[in-house]
């Protein structure tokens, strides 16, 4: 009886689990092991990790100008992009709440999430192009000579991080908007009767009730910012002079341009550690439920 029940369960579950084990879990473990060996095949984690972490493409504190190295570039991306998109998406969700045709406006802003990242990167280099881009128009309007910020090491990473706000605000917007619609109108009506001002209602009703969604948006956004690849690949290729190099790009460079799998494995393990740190609260939540 029992064995038959287990057999049915196994028939449902095993094909998926075998694939997950063979293609996701096992290779991930092998990558971890690979990161402990030097390219010469000697087991020496300290030497291998040390070689990667002392590579100036990973960390570079020689000067106060970019390139700072891939790890720092990912962090810069987070510092600029995370608060901007999350807050902008939340504000827009509130602004659009009772706007007629809000579905259309929201869809337009969400398109950035639907298109391939490579296309996002190409559109960014298009926007920043000196002669034909939108940035060119703006510069001309203000009478300053147009320059492409992606061509200069000291502006490129900031230009990409700000440009990606355009791409990813839709995520924060859609999730916050979905969550907003679950807040009963009564709360606001009651607060209004009690004489609460609009900002007060925003900070004391909207923000607290959206907090759990905001947390999810933050975690997901940070994970994307850490894994960022296609945008940079297409827009700058990591240049100029490594000024926009990021972890995923550096991993590709080590592993599939130099075919140094051990260094590549270290970079992706660093990436994994950073992603895990960020996702612990979310995983813990899904376990506890």
């Amino acid at each position: 009886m029992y064995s038959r029940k287990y057999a049915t369960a196994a028939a449902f579950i095993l094909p998926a689990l075998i694939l997950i084990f063979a293609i996701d879990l096992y290779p991930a473990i092998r990558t971890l092991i690979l990161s402990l060996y030097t390219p010469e095949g000697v087991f020496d984690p300290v030497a291998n990790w040390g070689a990667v972490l002392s590579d100036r493409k990973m960390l570079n504190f020689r000067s106060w100008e970019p390139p700072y190295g891939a790890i720092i570039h990912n962090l810069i991306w987070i510092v600029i992009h995370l608060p901007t998109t999350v807050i902008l998406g939340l504000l827009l969700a509130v602004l659009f709440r009772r706007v007629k045709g809000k579905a259309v406006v929201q869809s337009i802003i969400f398109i950035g999430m639907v298109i391939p990242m490579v296309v996002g990167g190409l559109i960014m280099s298009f926007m920043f192009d000196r002669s034909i881009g939108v940035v060119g128009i703006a510069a001309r309007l203000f009478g300053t000579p147009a320059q492409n910020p992606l061509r200069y090491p000291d502006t490129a990473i900031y230009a990409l991080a700000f440009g990606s706000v355009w791409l990813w605000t839709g995520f924060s917007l859609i999730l916050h908007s979905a969550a907003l619609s679950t807040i009963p109108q009564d709360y606001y009506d009651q607060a209004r009767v009690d004489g609460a001002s609009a900002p007060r209602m925003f900070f004391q009703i909207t923000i607290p009730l959206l907090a759990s969604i905001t947390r999810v948006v933050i975690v997901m956004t940070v994970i994307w910012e850490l894994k960022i690849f296609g945008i940079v690949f297409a827009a700058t290729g990591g240049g100029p002079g490594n000024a926009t190099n990021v972890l995923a790009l550096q991993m590709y460079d080590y592993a599939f341009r130099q075919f140094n799998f051990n260094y590549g494995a270290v970079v992706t393990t660093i990436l994994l550690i950073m992603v895990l740190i960020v996702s612990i609260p979310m995983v813990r939540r899904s376990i506890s439920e």
Partner: protein
Amino acid sequence: MNNNKESIRVHRVVPYRTQALFVKVFFHLLAYVIGAIWLIPFLGLLMTSVRPFGEVANLGWWNLSEFTPSLANYIDAWFHTSYPIMQGMYNSLIVALPATAVPIVLGSAAAYGFARFHFPLKNVVFTLTVVLMALPAQMIAIPLFQTMEATGLLDTFISVIIVHTAWGMPWIMFFMRNFFDQLPKNVEESAVIQGASQLTILLRIVVPMSVAALISAAVLQFLWVWSDFFFPLIFLFSSEKLVAVQRLPLLKGTHLVDWGLLSAGTVIVVSVPILIFAFLQRYYVRGMVGWTLR
């Protein structure tokens, strides 16, 4: 109770009517302006793609003093001599269709197993698959590259299809299990009592109730595979095997970017996700929200 609420609302709206109207109009205008700002890059891309590049490069795509629309850029991109987009679209479909269908079937079956059966270590195993959702793609790329090379699968569509099938599995299982957990079990239970087999129950009862969720999962998985750049970049390199998104950066060229050609190619490649989003938006958003928020 209901009446009471109504009266509060009426009471509050009347004295502020003009002010409220002004605020309302202002908010509407602001919202539409923001939407328009968001459209500018797409508009620029579209304008550049339908005009000769010389015209755009001299005057800017927003300048209409000279406007000669043509599909020449699209034809050039579609039949490009080195990296034809036509072939890329075809390759992307060959990869994305099986890499959507197979993980949806296998992943949903597993999700159903987790939702309906009890067995030892169930929660441990499921938690492990959920944790795998956080895995960066880079983490599996090196060993898989070695395996594909050893088995002769490198530079074949099968390699990318297999990898995407396994890669999509954890979140499909997670998403579908949450869905199955919410489905009422009593219909299935009474079917069991009447002696229906597990397969009959699945095909006759569960699948028809799950169509919307399955479409949501399929839409997200298809768009993910269509858009993914990293796996094809590693596993496919012969010029005739490249998928659509891989060809775009190559159209960029090395010296002077021909934005006419590149924008036309981009519009073609992006039209697939945008059309899917436009027509299946309900499913897409439900999948997105369900996947992240459960």
